[in-house]
């Protein structure tokens, strides 16, 4: 088998000539051509059995009645079916019992991770690393409690979400409502900073602020500043701050506190997913 020499003068050309340049006529191999014809025949069959041609009001449906949407619905139903047994077991148990069962815990951690990525990570960050105004879920500072059941309750009803059972708390606007004078706010701010132990504080101002604190703040944040999860009052002595631990932010939070909102997930997500999320969040590193 020899290939024709490119310089073969006896070979046929296409007949076209461009500035003296001609092109050899190299016909396609016949088997290639037959395959091409076969694809044309195939495409006609395809139009008949599959959706193909658009019309003004829709499209030809095809004999098989195939649609990719129906296929998706089918495969989702199949996936649900496959998971049903596991999810039933999770629905019947409380998060505490789920976390105690090695098999279910593994499942809940995987399912919870997926649900967290879709629903929670936008605010709380991947892995629960949090952000300004959005609590870190991987540490041990919890506004509303870090036990499994606390987390489950917070997840189900949300925080200031409008749900009947939502976690609700409101810190008074000590500055804008005129409850404290500006120098009192400065003093109590100094005292709060001294609780965190990290910042350099004016000891005299802090000592004056201590009295204001005992009168105005200790009810919720506790005598030692360690907070009360029952009322959603943050721990002021841990050096972990939701909005920031610098003097300006702390003072601003006393004058006109910001209040975050978290939606209630009951009703938005199914029961099993909320339970898996609870187990997952509890296992992020700070569960109590």
């Amino acid at each position, binding site marked *: *088998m*020899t*290939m*024709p020499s490119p310089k073969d*003068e*006896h*070979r*046929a*050309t*296409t*007949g*076209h000539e461009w500035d003296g340049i001609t092109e050899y*006529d190299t*016909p*396609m*191999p*016949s*088997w290639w*051509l037959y395959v091409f014809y076969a694809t044309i025949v195939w495409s006609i069959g395809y139009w008949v059995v599959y959706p193909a041609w658009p019309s003004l009001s829709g499209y030809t449906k095809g004999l098989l009645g195939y649609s990719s949407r129906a296929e998706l619905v089918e495969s989702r139903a199949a996936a649900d079916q496959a998971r049903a047994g596991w999810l039933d077991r999770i629905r019947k148990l409380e998060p505490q019992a789920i976390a105690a069962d*090695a098999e279910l*815990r*593994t499942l809940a*951690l995987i399912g919870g991770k997926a649900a967290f990525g879709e629903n929670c990570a936008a605010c709380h*960050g*991947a*892995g*629960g*690393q*949090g952000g300004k105004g959005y609590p*870190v879920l*991987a*540490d*041990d*500072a919890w506004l509303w409690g870090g036990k499994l059941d606390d987390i489950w309750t917070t997840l189900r009803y949300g925080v200031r979400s409008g749900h009947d059972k939502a976690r609700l708390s409101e810190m008074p606007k000590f500055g804008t409502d005129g409850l404290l004078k500006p120098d009192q706010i400065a003093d109590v701010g100094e005292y709060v900073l001294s609780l965190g132990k990290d910042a350099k504080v004016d000891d005299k101002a802090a000592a004056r602020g201590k009295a204001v604190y005992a009168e105005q703040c200790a009810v919720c944040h506790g005598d030692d500043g360690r907070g009360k999860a029952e009322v959603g009052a943050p*721990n002021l*002595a*841990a*050096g*972990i701050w939701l909005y920031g631990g610098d003097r300006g932010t702390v003072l601003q939070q006393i004058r006109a506190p910001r209040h975050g909102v978290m939606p209630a997930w009951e009703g938005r997500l199914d029961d099993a997913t909320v339970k898996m999320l609870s187990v997952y969040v509890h*296992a*992020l*590193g*700070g569960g109590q």
Partner: protein
Amino acid sequence: MNVHHQPPVLDDPTDLPPLFADRRKVYPQRVGGQFRRLKWAALIGLLGIYYVTPWLRWDRGPGAPDQAVLIDMPGRRGYFFFIEIWPQEVYYLAGALILGAVALFLATTLAGRVWCGFTCPQTVWTDLFMWVERLVEGDRNQRMRRDAGPLGFDKAWRKAAKHASWLVIALLTGGAWIMYFTDAPGFVRDIVRLEVDPVVLGFIGLFTATTYTLAGWAREQVCVYMCPWPRFQAAMFDEQTRLVAYDERRGEPRGKAGSLTRAEDPLSAFAGRGHCIDCGLCVRACPTGIDIRDGNQLACIGCALCVDACDGVMQKIGLPPKLIGFKSIAGDARPNLFRPRVLVYLALLLLVGGTMLVGLMTRRDVDVAVLADRAPLFVTLSDGFIQDGYTLKIANKRRAARDYALGVEGLTRPRVNAIGGETLTIEPDGQASFRVYVKVPRAALKSERTPFRFVLTERGSGKVVTHDAVFLGPAG
């Protein structure tokens, strides 16, 4: 479909060379001799290994398959007698393939294409199919006559019987292949009960079809057109390599023997002319249809059937044998085994084989992998500790459950806890992931990165497995 335009059309375009050469059907003639016997022995031995291997049993204890050679795809394990590999150890397979390749190079350097001629599955199955063909349709001349003749009852039933037998052999081949991937007795039981999975049926069909096509129809075309090996095997040849070759100096000038075949003293009768009597038996015996007297060529698979053919003829006319034989360019002296390329291939064989052996002997039956959390890298806790999260993946390659106590080494005042409890339990022949948190007082951290080690102590035996990790903390 050739469309031609004016001018210049100087030649008939149908003179273009065809894209594919037509296949000239090869009708190999039956010959006997030492190499034919060797080929029968190889065929019986290799087919025996192929069909018997899946039935060998090997006790691995409860819960494990007892098939000696098994590739368990759904279970993701490979079993070969005492060796059991996991998917992540597939480099053992790569090592085995390298060993096979180097052994092939070595054999080729010593004796040419012995692999092709005697042991390649394509050769073995084609040989088997040719044997069936000869049984049903007769030898070369009968087959050629019948193929040329009209289709009658005799031709029809013989062709039908041949193809039916081929298909049965192909089906048995394809069926046996499945047994390497599933429990052989269970598979046979499923077949008897007609409960075979459609996917399995599909694979049996595939292997049946390829066996039938490749050994029945394609035959030497596989060696000449499809197989890459003939294209570069000549790179392993040197002057000392013994190849199937024709002794041109002794054979030429060839010529018909005529009355010389009845000579009293053949050697002197043949003096002055070549010993080749141009009987053509070497060509007729060749399964790829070539003439070995044209010299070493790509289509020669080194099966040595022409050697048998010629030796028989030489014996009949009283001339010495081996006019065609395994010959080297360097001459017929005993080949030098200690040539550099032989030594290099041997050294490679020993090196790869030794490495694999050491690898298998020291293979640990527990694997630990540590993944450090990247979001967040670390968190500060309310008591001033810094906490890092890790995922520990532990693979337990033993057929018994394992309990590990978790600890760390190389950190100051660390606290370690795992989600799910103190003890890490891994099922027999299984793997598990554990969320692990390590806490260190901030004051105890000297830098952003502190290397340390996870220490897993097996409860009971007290055996220790460690894995390096890094503790990340705040700067300064």
